[in-house]
């Protein structure tokens, strides 16, 4: 697992978090699990980058947080997308698609 780990591109982490949070209120652990599951273990989010990112996004007003009961019956902090966050996600996804499209084009054409 270790050697295959791929570093996330700068800024990509924020987009992934926003995307996951867009599906509904979710806590930090849940986000980490989801990312890992959906990417089929390709991405593993480190707490050391996940939580500062969550706090940063909250600070910018893209995520809002509330305290709710988790499945295990404890209190947890649940993040969900704000309207501002939704717009931000849209922008980032568009940019990402432009970028990957352009990169793919170069890779294909140059072959």
């Amino acid at each position, binding site marked *: 697992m270790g050697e295959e780990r791929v570093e996330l591109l700068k800024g990509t982490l924020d987009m992934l978090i926003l995307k996951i949070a867009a599906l509904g209120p979710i*806590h*930090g*652990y849940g986000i*980490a*699990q989801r990312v890992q599951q959906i990417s089929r273990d390709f991405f593993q989010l*480190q*707490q*050391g980058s996940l*939580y*500062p990112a969550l*706090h*940063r996004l*909250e*600070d910018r007003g893209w995520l809002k947080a509330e*305290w709710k009961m*988790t499945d*295990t019956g*404890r*209190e*947890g*902090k649940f993040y969900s997308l704000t309207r501002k966050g939704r717009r931000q996600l849209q922008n980032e996804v568009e940019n990402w698609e432009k970028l990957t499209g352009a990169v793919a084009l170069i890779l294909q054409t140059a072959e």
Partner: protein
Amino acid sequence: MRWDQRLFRRARTEKRLDAELRSHLEQQIADYIATGMTPEEARRRGRLEFGGLEQVKEECRDVGAARFIEALVQDVRYGLRQLRRNPGFTAVAVITLALGIGANTAIFSAVDAVLLRFLPVPHPEQLVLLRWQSAHEATDYLPYPMFKQFRKRNQVFSGVMAFHNLDLVTRMDREQGLATGQLVTGNYFSVLGVRPMLGRTFSSGEDRVPGADPLALISYRYWETQFGHNASVVGHSLELNGVSFTIIGVMPRAFFGVSLGDSIDVWIPMMMQAQVMDGKSILDDPNSWQLQVMARRKPGVSEQQALAAVNVRYQRYAHRQAGSRLSVQAEHNLRDERIVLLPAARGLSTLRGRLSMPLLVLMALVGLVLLIACANIASLVLARATVRQRELAVRIALGAGRLRVLRQLLTESLVLAALGGAASLLFALWGEHLLLALLSGAGTPVAINLRLDSAVLVFAACLALLTAILFGSAPAWQAARIHPGSVMKASVRDPAAASGAGRSRWEPRKILVAGEVAMALLLVSSAGMLVRSLQKLKDVDPGFDANGVLMVSIDPTLAGYRGNRLMNFYDQVTGAVRALPGVRSASLSALPPITDAQWRSGVFVEGHSPGPNEQTTTDLDFVGPGYFRTLRIPLLQGREFTLLDSAAAPKVAIINEAMARFYFGNQRAIGKRLSFISPEHGEIEIVGVARNCKYHSLRETMPHMMYVPYAQTPPASLAYGMALEIRTAGNSDAMVGAVRQAIRAVDGKVPILGFTTLARQVRESLAQERLVSRLATVFALLALLLACVGIYGVMTYAVARRTGEIGIRMALGARRTQVLGMVLREALGLAGAGIVIGVPAAIVFARLISNQLYGISPADPLAVVGSVALLGVIALIASYIPARRAARLDPIAALRHE
């Protein structure tokens, strides 16, 4: 958000962050257990994967708003550590600042008390004093009938009250004393809005019937000194000027009346006026102008509205007084008469007029001292910053933002200033005591309240902040220009070269020192001029011989003496005192020489027709037989007054030289006649011409002066008592007991208001000049000391930096004296630059304070040249040690040093 709320929120945020991260960890562990791990292994694995809990937290925190405060706390801690590491620097800087800020705070507290502070009453800004004005005259003292006109219900004032100060002879349990009293209208306290501390104030019903309500309120100070805080004082009786009063209340400590500088002991109702003032009522007399009138403007009423309303009333009153048949001229005159409203929020004060200029001068001088102190500390901080450039360069190279480094340096300055500011309060407290003692002098105590109140504390805090900005900005500016690469490459010993600071001939530290010299020069020359003025004043010949004269102030009118009995009493007392062994001569005068009070009157002189704008008034004094002999005022022509110049004898006068010359030129004045403006006094013959002497103060130019025998004056002129002048053979002070006994023997009930000597009286008239020149001298010495330290610091540093160069010069054959001269010349150059700026500044400043000077010009050569020379010498002294060090360098060691 308040800081405590912020702190509270921070604690909660911290707890939540912890809970969030822990819940993550616990879910992870639960999941691992679910996949079949043992709990121990799951926990171990979970922790391992999670990494440092604290590190994650720290990174999360950085996001929050708390980041700024935390960085600040860090900066302050770092700053304190830096200061601890340099105890010498810290001590010098803190003490310098404490002295500078403390001196400023002390002077400011006096400025605050005298010039700025409001009366301790609600909404003081609504209070106004009524002044009557005509084309030629103005007075703040109005007759009672006029006051009644203003008091009537009106739209602009919520209340109008009046008061009158008077001396009271008190008697309590057979003990006689003196008190300062104030007759007040019944609404005095309610208009001001002050409540008593004990008991009650007067009610409006107690302000109707003359003589009906002998009630008194006393001040906190009087309560303290006379009744020892006795709470049962209410209901106690107190005899005032022979009338028994009942005390109904005590006013709070902060309330001293409405006049700054004199404190009232006893307040009594206006309706008791006739009872305490020899039975003659002034309340119905429209010609008795004796009451001060204050009013409180209704909220929302503008000054114009109030002024208009009050003047409508005044015109109605004045026309009624004048009667129906007004001449055209009188009608015209009346149109010029009006009432003006003076703001009274800060109370009334004669003290303010007298002290404001000296206080402002002192404030300016002490402010300069602080500037010099700041320049010195800035210089020290700059020197340190140069040494610290490597440290700063390393921090910048490691990624610290330039802004962060700047903030760090400014924070250090602020920490330093805060320490200095806190320490300054100790100096300020001590300085205030000193100042109050000096302000009061030995003569009249000044009842002003100096204290470290909020205004003063805010002032000190602002000063500390200002100093931090002043001395902190230079090093911060220098740090902002650091190029880490060149600093690290530069030699360890001379990092200054890297920033370019060392290349210019005028590096910032030298500019600072030149500025210090300029400011010190201004201070020294101002102090010099003030001291020289005082010296000139001391040398002024007052025209009389002040040595060996005892002065006693007595007021038999307070014991009921009037008319002929009064004159007889004065004759008897003078006779009794003259008979004492050790008394050479004795006399009386209504006004002792060199006092604030004055008598003036217009005079018509026989054969003289006054020009259109000529001043026809002259100063007056009413004196006893032998007055000129007692004070040793030489008579140039004619004779002295004698006992023969009695009430029944022809009216006579002695005039001074200035008056004789003005009216008669070189003609003989003896035998000429004159008369007062009020014709009832009749014609007066001039029987003598006396040498000029000073009347009010040593500063005045010689006034026109006329002396009249007291036996020939209307008794009203003597209503405030007289001064007994006694020329003694030996020590005047030793005669006090005998004189007191002699007066008591004539009548024990007559109050003796005070003893002094004429010499002391003259000396005390200069108390204020002495205070200002002394403080200015202290400030000038401080400035010299600071400038000396500044020059020494800069020159030591300059020599250290040029060690290599000096080594080369010496190796090439420069002699030691040449090296010495080179360093001294550089120091003199610095001082010279400061002097070039300082001299014109000093002259301009002296012009601004010229009304404080006496007998010298604002460009007094002695003071200016003297201070230039002094600063030159100081520069030489300060640079001699570094210069000698340079001259003693061993060339070989110096070259190796490179």
